[in-house]
C-alpha cells in the first residue's frame, strides 16, 4: 500500500508536468456543456487555457499535437458556491484556522486574500472530485466575520489562484452571531448591523463633501461596508431560521443592499417572501445534520427552491470537526436524488453557481472563450460509486488519479 501510494503520487505529478503546457482535447461519451443539450460523443478543444471549440466528435477536428483525454461523462469544472477551505485547514488546530476572528463581532475589513493558503490539502482534495472554482473566505460565526473571495483550486500563491479578491461580505444571523457579550440576542444583532450601516451611510456622505479637508480619515471597515451599500459587494448572510432569514430580507430592503442568503434551512417556510425579494440562495449542504436552528432541514430543500423558481447554488459550507470539509459534488448528488433531478443539480453545480457569483462570463459552462475548466467522470457524476477521472483547469491537467 505504501508503495502504491508513492507510485500514485509520482504518476499524478508526472502527468501534471507532462501536460502542463500541452493543448488539450477532451472527448466524452456525453458532454454536458450547460449551454444547450448534452452532446453524445462530444469534444472540447482547449487552446492556451481557453475553450476554443465544443461539438460532436464528427464535426470537430482535433489538431495533431493535442493531448486527448477521454471519459464517459464530461462536465464544466464544478463551482462550490460557498466554502471555507483555504482558510480552515484540515488539521483543525489553532494554527490552521483562519476563517473566524473573535476579537470583535463586526470586522468586514478582514480580507480573505490575506488568509488564503493555496497549498492547503483540502483544496487538492476537493479538486480531485472535479471542483475547479470555490467561493471561500471568512466563515459563519460572527455578526460580520470578514470578506470572501473567489478562486480556482490551483495556484501556488493567492494571486495565482484568485479570480475575485473581494467577492462578498460574510455575515451571520442567529445563534452563530451571538457571543458571551454582545450581540447576545437576535434583536441586538440586527440593531448592531443597522447602526454600522447607518454609520457607513454617514461616512459616505462625508467623503462626498466638496472640501477635501473636511473629509474623514480612511476607515477600512467603512470602506468595505460602503461597497456593500454601493452594491459592489453583496452581503452574504448565513441564516438558518426563518426569523433570521426574514431579518436579513428586512435589512436588505432598508439599506437597498444586494443580499445572498446562505444556509437557509427554513427556506421552504418562506417561499413567497423569498420570491418577492428576488433573493438568491446558497442552500445548506444537502447532508447537513438537523438539530437546533436546523431542526427543519430536509434533503428536498433544493428541489423546493427549484419548484419555486428561486435561484440557488450548492455549497460545502463550513465544518468544524470530522470530516473537515464536505464535497459539494456529494451534496449536489443527494439533492439530485431527493427531488431535484440530475440535470437541475448539474446546472446548480456549474452555470447557476457561476451566475450567482457573477463569474459566468468565465466559468460554469463549456463554451468558446470560457476558461478551460473541465471535470471528467467514468459514469453519472452523482453516483456514489462513480470516479472523477480527470480535472482540467485553465487547460492544464491538474488531477488524473481516479477518485
Amino acid at each position, binding site marked *: 500500500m505504501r508503495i502504491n501510494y508513492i507510485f500514485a503520487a509520482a504518476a499524478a505529478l508526472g502527468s501534471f508536468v507532462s501536460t502542463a503546457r500541452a493543448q488539450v482535447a477532451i472527448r466524452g461519451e456525453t458532454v454536458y456543456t450547460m449551454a444547450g443539450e448534452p452532446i453524445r460523443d462530444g469534444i472540447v478543444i482547449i487552446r492556451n487555457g481557453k475553450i476554443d471549440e465544443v461539438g460532436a466528435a464528427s464535426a470537430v477536428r482535433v489538431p495533431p499535437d493535442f493531448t486527448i483525454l477521454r471519459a464517459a461523462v464530461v462536465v464544466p469544472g464544478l463551482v462550490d458556491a460557498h466554502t471555507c477551505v483555504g482558510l480552515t485547514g484540515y488539521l483543525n488546530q489553532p494554527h490552521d484556522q483562519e476563517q473566524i476572528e473573535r476579537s470583535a463581532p463586526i470586522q468586514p475589513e478582514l480580507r480573505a486574500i490575506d488568509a488564503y493558503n493555496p497549498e492547503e490539502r483540502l483544496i487538492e482534495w476537493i479538486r480531485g472530485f472535479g471542483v475547479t472554482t470555490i467561493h471561500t473566505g471568512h466563515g459563519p460565526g460572527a455578526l460580520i466575520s470578514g470578506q470572501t473571495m473567489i478562486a480556482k483550486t490551483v495556484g501556488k500563491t493567492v494571486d495565482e489562484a484568485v479570480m475575485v479578491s473581494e467577492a462578498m461580505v460574510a455575515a451571520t444571523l442567529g445563534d452563530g452571531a451571538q457571543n458571551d457579550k454582545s450581540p447576545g440576542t437576535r434583536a441586538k444583532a440586527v440593531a448592531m448591523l443597522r447602526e454600522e450601516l447607518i454609520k457607513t451611510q454617514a461616512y459616505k456622505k462625508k467623503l462626498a463633501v466638496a472640501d477635501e479637508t473636511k473629509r474623514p480619515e480612511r476607515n477600512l471597515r467603512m470602506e468595505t461596508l460602503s461597497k456593500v451599500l454601493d452594491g459592489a459587494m453583496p452581503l452574504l448572510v448565513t441564516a438558518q431560521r426563518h426569523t433570521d432569514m426574514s431579518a436579513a430580507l428586512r435589512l436588505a430592503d432598508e439599506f437597498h443592499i444586494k443580499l445572498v442568503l446562505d444556509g437557509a434551512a427554513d427556506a421552504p417556510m418562506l417561499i413567497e417572501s423569498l420570491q418577492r425579494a428576488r433573493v438568491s440562495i446558497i442552500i445548506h449542504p444537502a447532508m447537513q445534520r438537523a438539530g437546533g436552528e436546523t431542526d427543519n432541514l430536509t434533503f428536498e430543500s433544493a428541489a423546493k427552491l427549484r419548484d419555486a423558481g428561486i435561484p440557488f447554488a450548492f455549497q460545502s459550507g463550513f465544518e468544524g470537526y470530522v470530516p473537515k470539509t464536505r464535497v459539494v459534488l456529494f451534496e449536489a448528488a443527494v439533492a439530485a436524488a431527493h427531488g431535484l433531478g440530475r440535470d437541475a443539480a448539474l446546472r446548480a453545480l456549474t452555470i447557476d453557481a457561476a451566475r450567482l457569483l457573477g463569474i459566468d462570463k468565465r466559468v460554469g459552462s463549456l463554451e468558446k472563450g470560457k476558461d478551460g475548466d473541465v471535470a471528467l467522470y467514468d459514469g453519472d457524476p452523482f453516483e*456514489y*460509486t462513480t470516479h472523477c477521472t480527470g480535472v482540467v483547469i485553465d487547460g492544464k491537467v491538474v488531477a488524473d488519479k481516479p477518485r
Partner: protein
Amino acid sequence: MRIQNLQFVALALLAAGAACANARGLSFSQGPRVADSASRPVVFRGAKIVTMAGEDIDDGVLVVDKGKITAVGRAANVTIPANAEEVDARGKYILPGFVDTHSHIGAPAGGDSSSPIQPDCRVMDSIDVRDPGIARARAGGITTANVMPGSGHLLSGQTLYLKLRDGNAIEDLLIKLDDGSAAGGIKMANGTNSRGNPPFPGSRAKSAALVREQYIKAAAYRDKLKKANGDPEKMPERDLNMEALVEVLDGKRVVHHHTHRHDDILTVLRLQKEFGFKVVLHHVSEGWKVADEIAKANVPCSVIVIDSPGGKLEAKDASIETCGVLERAGARVAIHTDDYITDSRLFNRSAALAVRGGMSRRGALAALTIEGAKILELDKKIGSLETGKDADLAIWSGDPLSVYSYVTETWIEGKLVFDRSRARDRLVAEGGRGAGEPRLDLGCCAADGEDR
C-alpha cells in the same frame, strides 16, 4: 406549540390513512394491512433478494411468521402459507436489515469528567428511545445498532446492541441473551480524544498504562471471585467497575475500541494480546497503513467512511480506500455510521463510497449486514436472510449502492417499523418541519399517542 402539534397530528393521520389505502391497493391480499407477522404470516414477493448467504435471488419469495424467516428462495420452490399477507416488492431489492456497529442515536451518555475509566456507566441509563435519530436509522434500513457512549474516555462505559423496534422504554429495544442479560459491549478509546488534564492521561504511554493497571486489577478481582467460589464470607465487596471489566476479561463483553492512528491501532492489538479480551477496531482511519498487521491479528474492523480527511490530527490520513485495503489484506470489515458524524439515513452511502475507494461490492454489502452481525456476535440471529433468523429486513427501491435508491419499508422481527408511504415516515426520511420533534415523531401515529 401544543395547538400546532395537534393540527399536525390530524394532518398526519389523514395522510397516513390515505397512504394505507394506497398500500392496500398495491397488495395482492384482500384484507387490511396488518404488517405484523405476529398475527399472520407475511410473504414478500417479486424482489431481488440479497440474502448475504449465497447468491442473490431474482424474483424471490421470502416468508415471515411470528417474527422469524420461515422460507426464502425462488418463487417455484417456496410454499406460501394460505392466510399470508402479501407484500408486493416487484422491481425492488430486499436486503437484511443493516447492522450499525457504532452509533450514537438516542443521545447515549457514558462516563463523566471524574475519571478516564468508567466501566460502571451504562448507556442503558441514558438512552432516549424517542430520539428522532432512532426513527431516522430505521428510514435508512438499519434494524440493529450498537449504541455507544463517546470517545472522550479511555473507557467510557457499557454499550447496548439495540433492535430499533417501536418502543416506549429502553427495555423494549434490548436484545436479550440466553442468560437474560442485555446484549452489549464496552467502549474504549485511545489516541487524542481520551487525553486531558489529570486524572485523564496526558500521553499515549500513560493512556496504555492506566488501562493495563485496571485490567490487572480486574484479573485480581476475578481471582478473588473464583477462590470464593460463591461463599458469601469470602466474596470480595461488589465493585461495579470490576464486574464490568471481568465480563470483558471473560469474553462476555466485546471491547469496541475507538482508534485512528496506525500506532494507536497497534497499541490496541498489543493490549488485546496481553489481556486476551475480544476487541473490534473502530474508525481505523489509518488502518490502510497497518492492514497486514490487523489481518494477522484476526481482529475485525468497524470502519467509518468520511468525505474528507482531517478535522483532527488522528484523522488526517483518513482515506476512502481503507475498507478496500483492509479487505484485500484479508481483514474482516464492517462499516459504521458513527451517527452523528454520518447520517443513519445514508448508511448505504458509506458502503458505496467504500466501493468507490476500491472495496468489492459484495464486501461492502457484507460490511453493512453480516459482518456487523458477526462483530456484535449476533450472526446466528441477524445479518442475513436465512430460514430461522429474525425477520429484520429492508425493501429498497433499487440497487442499495446507488444514490437514487431509498428504503420503502423496514421490518424488524416481522413487524413493519418504517413505511415510506406513511406521511410520518416520509417526513423522517426526507426531513422537514416537524421531523426533529421527538414527541411528534412517535406521538402522531401511536395508538395511545398523545403527548407522551
